[in-house]
C-alpha cells in the first residue's frame, strides 16, 4: 500500500472542495449567523451569552451539515461524470485508496470548516465574557465527528445513485439520526417478539446522531457524563469506518462507462 497515492488524492479533493464556491457561501452564512447572534444579544437583556451560544452552535452544525452533504454527494460522482476518474483507476492503485483519499480530503475540508466557524463563535463569546468557553469547544469537536459520519453516508449514497437522490437520502438519514435514539425505548415498549427485535436492529443500523449533541449542555452549562465525549468519538469513527467499507465494496465492483 502506498500512502502517497491516498495523500495525493486527498490533496486534490481538498483543493477541489476549497475551490467550490458553495464552501465560501456556506462559510459566509455561518459567519453571518454568528454575527446575527451578536445583534440579537444586544436586543435582549439577561441571557445574552446563552443566545450567542445557542444560535452560534446551531450555525456551526447546520452549515457544517450542508457542506458535508453537498460536497459528499458530489465529490465521487463528479469524478465519474467528468471522467477524471478514467486516468486515476487505471493507475497502479487499489480502488479503496481512491475512496479513502477522497474521504480524507473531505475530512480535512470539514476540519478546517469547523475550526474557522467555531473560532468565530469563540471570539463572539470572548467579546462578551472575556474568557474562552470549553463546553462550546467540546460541542464543536463532537459536531466535527457527526459531520464525518454524514459525509461518509453521502459518499455511500453517491456511489450508486444520482446526486439528487443521494441528497434526499442523506438528508433523511440526518433527520432520522437525530430521533433514532427513541427507537430503543420503543423497542422496550413494543408488543410481540418480532417488532422489538426489528426496532432494535434499526436502532443499531441507523446513525444515532444525538450522541454528538452537546449543544444544550453547552448553552445551559450542564454537566456531561464522564466518558461521554470519548465514547461518542469512538462511535463516530466506527460508524464512519463501516459506511466507508460499504462504499468501497460497491465501488470495487462497479464499471466506469
Amino acid at each position: 500500500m502506498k500512502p502517497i497515492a491516498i495523500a495525493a488524492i486527498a490533496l486534490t479533493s481538498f483543493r477541489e472542495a476549497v475551490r467550490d464556491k458553495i464552501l465560501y457561501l456556506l462559510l459566509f452564512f455561518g459567519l453571518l449567523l454568528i454575527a446575527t447572534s451578536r445583534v440579537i444579544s444586544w436586543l435582549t437583556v439577561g441571557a445574552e451569552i446563552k443566545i450567542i451560544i445557542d444560535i452560534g452552535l446551531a450555525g456551526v452544525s447546520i452549515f457544517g451539515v450542508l457542506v458535508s452533504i453537498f460536497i459528499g454527494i458530489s465529490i465521487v460522482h463528479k469524478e465519474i461524470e467528468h471522467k477524471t476518474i478514467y486516468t486515476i483507476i487505471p493507475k497502479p492503485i487499489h480502488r479503496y485508496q481512491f475512496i479513502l483519499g477522497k474521504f480524507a480530503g473531505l475530512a480535512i475540508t470539514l476540519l478546517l470548516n469547523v475550526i474557522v466557524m467555531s473560532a468565530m463563535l469563540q471570539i463572539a463569546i470572548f467579546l462578551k465574557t472575556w474568557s474562552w468557553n470549553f463546553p462550546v469547544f467540546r460541542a464543536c469537536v463532537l459536531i466535527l465527528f457527526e459531520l464525518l459520519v454524514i459525509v461518509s453516508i453521502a459518499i455511500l449514497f453517491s456511489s450508486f445513485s444520482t446526486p439528487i437522490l443521494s441528497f434526499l437520502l442523506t438528508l433523511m438519514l440526518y433527520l432520522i439520526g437525530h430521533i433514532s435514539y427513541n427507537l430503543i425505548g420503543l423497542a422496550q415498549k413494543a408488543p410481540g417478539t418480532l417488532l422489538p427485535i426489528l426496532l432494535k436492529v434499526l436502532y443499531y443500523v441507523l446513525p444515532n446522531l444525538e450522541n454528538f449533541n452537546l449543544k444544550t449542555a453547552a448553552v445551559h452549562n450542564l454537566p456531561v457524563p464522564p466518558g461521554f465525549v470519548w465514547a461518542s468519538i469512538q462511535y463516530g469513527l466506527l460508524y464512519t469506518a463501516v459506511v466507508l467499507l460499504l462504499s468501497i465494496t460497491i465501488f470495487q465492483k462497479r464499471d466506469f462507462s
Partner: protein
Amino acid sequence: MDAISIRNLWKVFRSGFIPRRRTVLRGINLDVRQGEVFAFLGPNGAGKTTTIKTIVNLIRPTNGDVLIFGKKASTIDARRRIGFLPENPYFYQYLRPVEFLQFNADLCGLPRRVSRTRIPELLQLVGLGDRTQLPIRKFSKGMVQRLGMAQAMINDPDLLILDEPLSGLDPIGRKEFRDIILDLRDRGKTIFFSSHILQDAEMICHRAAILVNGEVRRIGTLEELTAQDIAGYEISIQGFDADRISGLGRIIATQDKTIFIQVSDQTGLDRALSEIPARGGQIQSVIPRRKTLEDVFMGEVQKKS
C-alpha cells in the same frame, strides 16, 4: 509472453431502473505481442472503448480473461506496466500541467527525484514545454490530448494503451504523435491504440484487428490483411487503339492517347506484358492495385455477421 492476451472476453451491460441487458463484446480473442504497434480498428459503437476499459480495469469483464504481461488486468502488478490515454480525456480544470503530472506521478508512487526531471521532459516531448503555467481549463482540445499522452507516459510504461490518440489533433500534431509512437516502439515499448483514421493506422502499425459489433472479424499484419486479395494491376498503354485491347484486360479509362487497363492477376499481367508490345503498343507503367486497409475495413463492416 504477450503484452496483452484477451481470451473469450464478453461484456454484457445492465442499465436502467428495470435492467436491460446489452451485449457489447461477444467473445473477443486478441493477442498483442511485445514490441509491436497494434491498431484496434472498428466503426463507431463496435466496442473498442469497452474492450480498452476492461484492459485498464475500468470495466469488469462479464466473462473471459484479460492478461497483461501474463498477469490479470485487475492486479496492481499488471497496471504498474501500463500507461493509458482515454478517449476525449478530461482533467482537473484548476490544475496546471506540472501539478497534474505530479499528481499522476504520485499515484504511480514515483519518487520525487524521478518525477522532478521526467515531468519537464514529458511536457517538452508532447509539445507543451512553453505552456507549463497555463491552467488546464484554458487548454485547447489538442493541448488536452497532448497532456493526456504525457500522463500516460509518466511511469515509463512498457505498454501504452491509447484510445483514439490522434483525435482532436491538427495534421502537425498527428505527425508529432505518430513520431512519438514510433519512437516508443524503437525503445522497445508495445503500443495498442484504437482509431478510425485508417491512413494514420496504416502509417505506423505492424498488426491490426478489425472489430465489428463486438467481434474481432480480422486480425493480422498489414500485409496479411491487405495482400490477401490483391485487386490486380493497372497498366497504362500508349500508341494503341482501344479496340485492339480485346481479351487482354478491362479498360478502366482513356485519356488523350493513353489507355488504362486493369488485369486481375499475375497470368493476366504476364500475357499483357508480352502481347501489348507484340501488337505494337507501348507500355508506360504497371501499378499493382493492392487492397488498402480501407477496402478491407469497409468490406468487413458491410458484411453481415
